[in-house]
């Protein structure tokens, strides 16, 4: 973009005598100054439409008493001040309590899911660095979950996790005899494990893909030199691979964190409109508060709080990791 803007200006300047160079030539100058903004405009307008406007509207809604009586013309809903926020953070009352439980569940779920996705993705990427027979097939197979449509994949998991007719219990209970009675996976406490399994299955191929790309950038010579110096496989991973992947990891972990924390599709398709308490992650919780109980104002307040939380976490993370990088670079 910079090049595009400078080139015409350079050509214009070369045609002018030095004395006249500063004389006003509105069309050229105008073009030079406005071109970058004009080029940015479509993106800016779209960004406004897609993100900022709903965000502003959502924030306004969070200060309104917005129920079914006003959804047809939400602008007329009475102002609620901070009532919606007070309700959501009153952790002694059921609404706040349920939100807190949901938030803590989501934190634990995200921590475990991102951790496992990262671990599996990294391990698989390192394993597939070496060339061997069947590597291409394995790579393709590993990427299948990432390529499948989410809805179709998750609904298949939901069938497999059914208590009486599902494949999971058929193997665990009927074939291996690991349980006294077939456990429930889609209701009760186990639903957390179910959500975690499906989330990791869906998320780790992305980590694998990014890690594979990251590994391509590490020169083979470093490994060869390390091997000559007597470094074993583990030492090479610890001293060369992981430090070299650090910039990739910084982005990967952040993206996985945001995707997992906000993931709506997986729990919604697995459990339907009312997720079990153990798997009542924040996205579903807000959906239910807004669209199932028609407390749109309260739901909007919850969304704003979630946005603030994610902004703070992302900001702190970026700050911490960029500082670390600067120190590392120095």
């Amino acid at each position, binding site marked *: 973009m910079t090049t595009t803007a400078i080139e015409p200006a350079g050509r214009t300047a070369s045609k002018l005598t030095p004395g006249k160079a500063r004389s006003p030539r509105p069309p050229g100058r105008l073009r030079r100054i406005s071109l970058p903004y004009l080029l940015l405009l479509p993106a800016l307008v779209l960004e406004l439409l897609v993100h900022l406007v709903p965000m502003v509207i959502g924030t306004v809604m969070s200060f309104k008493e917005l129920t079914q009586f006003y959804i047809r013309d939400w602008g007329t809903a009475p102002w609620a001040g901070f009532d919606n926020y007070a309700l959501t953070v009153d952790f002694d009352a*059921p609404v706040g309590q349920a939100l807190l439980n949901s938030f803590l569940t989501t934190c634990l779920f995200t921590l475990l899911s991102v951790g496992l996705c990262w671990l599996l993705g990294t391990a698989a990427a390192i394993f597939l660095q070496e060339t061997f027979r069947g590597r291409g097939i394995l790579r393709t197979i590993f990427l299948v979950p990432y390529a499948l449509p989410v809805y179709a994949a998750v609904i298949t998991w939901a069938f497999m996790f059914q208590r009486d007719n599902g494949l999971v219990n058929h193997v665990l209970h009927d074939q291996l005899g690991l349980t006294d009675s077939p456990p429930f996976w889609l209701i009760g406490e186990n639903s957390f494990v179910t959500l975690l399994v499906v989330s990791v299955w869906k998320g780790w191929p992305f980590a694998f893909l990014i890690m594979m790309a990251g590994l391509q950038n590490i020169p083979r010579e470093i490994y060869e030199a390390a091997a000559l110096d007597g470094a074993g496989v583990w030492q090479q991973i610890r001293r060369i691979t992981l430090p070299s992947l650090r910039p990739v990891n910084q982005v990967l972990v952040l993206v996985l964190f945001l995707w997992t924390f906000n993931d709506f599709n997986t729990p919604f398709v697995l459990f339907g409109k009312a997720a079990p308490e153990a798997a009542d992650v924040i996205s579903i919780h807000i959906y239910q508060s807004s669209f199932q109980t028609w407390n749109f104002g309260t739901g909007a307040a919850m969304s704003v709080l979630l946005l603030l939380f994610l902004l703070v976490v992302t900001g702190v993370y970026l700050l911490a990791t960029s500082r670390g990088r600067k120190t590392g670079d120095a």
Partner: protein
Amino acid sequence: MRRTRAAAVGAVTLSLVLSAAACGGGTSGGAGSNENPETLTYWASNQGASIEVDKEVLQPELDKFEKQTGIKVKLEVVPWNDLLNRILTATTSGQGPDVLNIGNTWSASLQSSGALLPWDTKNFEKIGGKDRFVASALGSTGVQGQDPAAVPLYSMAYALYYNKKMFADAGVAKPPATWDELVATGKKLSKDGKSAIGVEGSNLANNIHQVFVLGKQHGADFFTPDGKADFTSDGAVAAVEQYVDLMAEHKIVAPGNAEYAQNQSLSDFSNDKTAMVLWQTASATFASQGMKEDEWGVAPAPVQSGAPGQGKATNSMAAGINMAVFKNTKNIDGAMKFVKFMTGDEEQKILNKAYGSIPPVSSAQQDPAFNTPALAVLRETLATSAAALPQVPEESQFETVVGTAVKELFAEAAAGREVTTESVRAKLEKAQQQMPKK
């Protein structure tokens, strides 16, 4: 420069205004217009075994309407799971269909949003008058004392369907008429991996239908006469406890039913795994699952006394589908003609026969086709012992929060945990506090 800046500012402002209008739209109230008299858009609820079946049933009738009036009806069959959200979205954006189906229990909730055309006397006259409809069906068309928000289209009622073979195998001669008999019979039927009665523990709406009826039998309404949520009355607690106890205490419901939400209990019934189900108009589903008509029987749903009637002898909610006109319609006259067509005697007979429901139009109900043993029970129930769900604006929220509470209690029962009066009350208290403040 000035022009460019102005253009940029204009574009941004326009986009902001447009999106704000889109989000807060639907403000152009009124009672529809006739800007687009040639076509109509119709959102039909999924009534048949599949969306395709619905299209096969409805399309010939829509063609007939086009032939009569020259108005083309664009049909979209919307699955139940999506219907309420689709209607809400249409309400918010103002971009909805001209005519739509709603679950009759949502009538008051949707009426309060102001999105649906009110059916005052003048509008009713355009479709032949209010008197054509059965009173119980009109009871689920909106808040009492206000003009209805919709017109009844298909009526349904709950009944007890029983598997004749399983009854014979267990030596049970007749279907139970009281809950005590149901439990006693149920214990005889629940053996060898088979269970007595099926429930849809994870289906919120179905949970509500069942506990509402049981609530009536315990003298509870779930809402006070002035429309405030009243989920924790002794009667409401007793109703929920009695329903969940079928699994928790009496063990006549298989634990697996706690996660059912997609009519799996009907499949179990058809496959001789469950002997009874409390269902509304199940005959078409049984037929689609390969069950012959003489393999199942139908009896009125149990009541505490054994004799269904009003009040504490209520044994069904007044179930059904209503037809509504979206206030923003651009073809109000066409929409009225279409509602008149669909609620006309001839169409009522055709459609209700196809879906196994009862016509809410009195004259159509007299057709002998609705007098088969199965349909006679449903018709009798609707006429004498069914009650409309609370016609309050918060009905939809009630379905969600109390339906979820019952789902969670079934999950507890399925895990082998005790369900007590206190645990039921605690769940219902939590549900009540999730309701919007009035």
